[in-house]
């Protein structure tokens, strides 16, 4: 894939051009001293050098609340709401690109979700190379998500005064079509990029005590760990962790009707496995009534279950859940605690033997 070069000063013109071409532009911008993904109307708002956002870009694929179809309850007429607007998502970090790859797998698996697929088809991903860790809670080096997936349409790498641009798809070419302030990179540019990349690796540290391939096993052995109840004691069951997680996609479905009880919509909204009623069945049996069990389920999904079901880790090491948790339950602390427990169990077995 050939390398192209775009001066940093041209980014604004590129965005304006895309806006003129009626693309919706979304990217990181500042809010109350933090960063969120939001609509960019003025290209100057785009904070592409952002550390990390509070919540994940999944909201542009799976909105927090979405009408699935509208209906007339008397006639049983139904109309699906498949809504998608060509949207360019700017500045996606590589961990979030990995998360989108998992969402793609899940939503296209078996019965493909048409609502997701329409939005995904209309979503153009402009990712950016992370050159240093973005938060106190991130551990992307451990999760092997600090380099890019194949999912990008356009990928940018910051080389000081210019971006090294790689185009990964026809959609990427479509974004750059007719834009002239970009040119083929020379050998010297490739060399500069290689230097930037070789410096990058040492900026990241391993923060987990287990390797990626050990994690499912560590968690599997921790099924009966007392640590889950320790987490359950402090957990508020607020569900913030799952809401900000780039790979959490669980939802609830409800109907709303007007006062004539005739016209209405069926909609889905983000749900959370941390909420007490999430795993209740008819007859009121709750398969996860204890908070500790619900935390266990969440961490198992992140480090084991999703990997077993889809071949991809449910955790991409973005650290958002740890940043948002009011009681500071974090992935790093939890995974390391369980790894420690696992080592101690192992040692005890060896002593006995």
């Amino acid at each position, binding site marked *: 894939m050939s390398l192209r070069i775009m001066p940093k000063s041209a980014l604004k013109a590129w965005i304006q051009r895309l806006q003129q071409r009626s693309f919706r532009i979304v990217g990181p911008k500042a809010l109350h001293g933090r960063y969120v993904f939001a609509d960019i109307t003025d290209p100057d708002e785009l904070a592409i050098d952002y550390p990390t956002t509070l919540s994940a870009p999944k909201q542009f694929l799976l909105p927090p609340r979405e009408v699935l179809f509208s209906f007339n309850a008397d006639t049983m007429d139904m109309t699906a709401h498949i809504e998608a607007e060509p949207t360019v998502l700017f500045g996606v970090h590589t961990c979030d690109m990995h998360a989108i790859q998992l969402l793609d797998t899940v939503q296209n698996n078996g019965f493909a979700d048409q609502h997701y697929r329409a939005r995904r088809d209309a979503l153009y991903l402009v990712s950016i190379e992370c050159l240093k860790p973005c938060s106190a809670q991130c551990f992307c080096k451990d999760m092997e998500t600090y380099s890019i997936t194949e999912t990008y349409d356009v990928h940018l790498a910051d080389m000081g005064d210019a971006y090294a641009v790689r185009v990964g798809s026809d959609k990427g070419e479509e974004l750059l079509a007719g834009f002239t302030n970009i040119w083929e990179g020379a050998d010297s540019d490739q060399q500069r990029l290689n230097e930037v990349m070789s410096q990058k690796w040492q900026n990241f540290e391993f923060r987990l005590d287990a390797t990626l391939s050990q994690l499912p096993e560590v968690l599997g052995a921790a099924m009966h760990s007392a640590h889950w109840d320790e987490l359950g004691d402090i957990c508020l069951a607020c569900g913030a962790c799952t809401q900000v997680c780039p790979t959490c996609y669980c939802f609830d479905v409800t109907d709303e*009707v007007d006062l004539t009880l005739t016209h209405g919509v069926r909609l889905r909204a983000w749900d959370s496995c941390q909420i007490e009623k999430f795993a209740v069945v008819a007859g009121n049996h709750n*398969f996860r009534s204890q908070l500790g069990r619900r935390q266990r389920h969440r961490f198992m999904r992140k480090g084991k279950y999703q990997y077993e079901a889809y071949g991809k880790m449910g955790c991409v090491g973005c650290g958002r859940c740890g940043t948002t948790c009011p009681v500071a339950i974090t992935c790093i602390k939890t995974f390391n605690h369980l790894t420690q427990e696992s080592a101690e169990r192992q040692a005890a077995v060896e002593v006995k033997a």
Partner: protein
Amino acid sequence: MITLLKETLSRQSIYMPTPARIAAMTPLTASETLFRVELPSGFHLHHRPGQFVELSVLGVGEAPISICSAPTRSNGSFELCVRAVGKLTNAVHKLPPGAKVGIRGPFGRSFPVERFYGRDILFVAGGLGLAPLRSLIDEVMDHRGMFDRVILLVGARTPRDLLFPDDLARWTARDDIEVHITVERPTEEWVSNVGVITTLFNKIDYQGRNMVATVVGPPVMYKFVLPDLLAHGLADSDIWMSFERQMKCGVGKCGHCQMHHIYTCQSGPIFSYQEVKNLQEAFA
């Protein structure tokens, strides 16, 4: 004929049901009613025993309900046994006959009936568990020559809670199926067995038989029934169960029915004991 699943998949949204009609409602107990659901002409449910559909009342919601009529008895219309316990199930009970409902499915994995050919079959049904099993029992009885001995054990709280009295009488009247029924709290008129369902195991002789068991009941029942079956020498892979989980979307997306890495609505609700015995969340 178009299968309902093909129709469900061809709709613009996988979450949008196909309109159907309540053709008949037969109250079975104080809280359970049998609904005969009629699909639009030209449609066929084409299900297998153990599968479920998502039943909708537009404006109220949707819930997974197991299909309780056998494939052999579901031409153009099929039956659902619904217990009024939640938002949707209560609403369905209040519908007038002829009312329109929505159906998606059939979803999920069925009982592997062909693997039961030539063998004894033991049905163990606790409470509402008789509903999904009824589909399988009639499927077996309608192909009776394919199986060896057939035994049905049914448990209910009181005689009034016994589901499908007509079917129980129909099966009892046959000499090619052994039927044992027990209730936990008898009424004065009750002349049959009293006790929890495991007390029925003494009534049958199945040690050393080439037997498969299909067990469906409330979550707590499995804990008591499984040890009995295992003690009688049944292999882990010959015990089949239907799991109850909140299969909200039916298509492996909403996450509510997830049990470890398994989506019950996709890999289940029918599982063999062998498949789930190491999953801590399977039984509690």
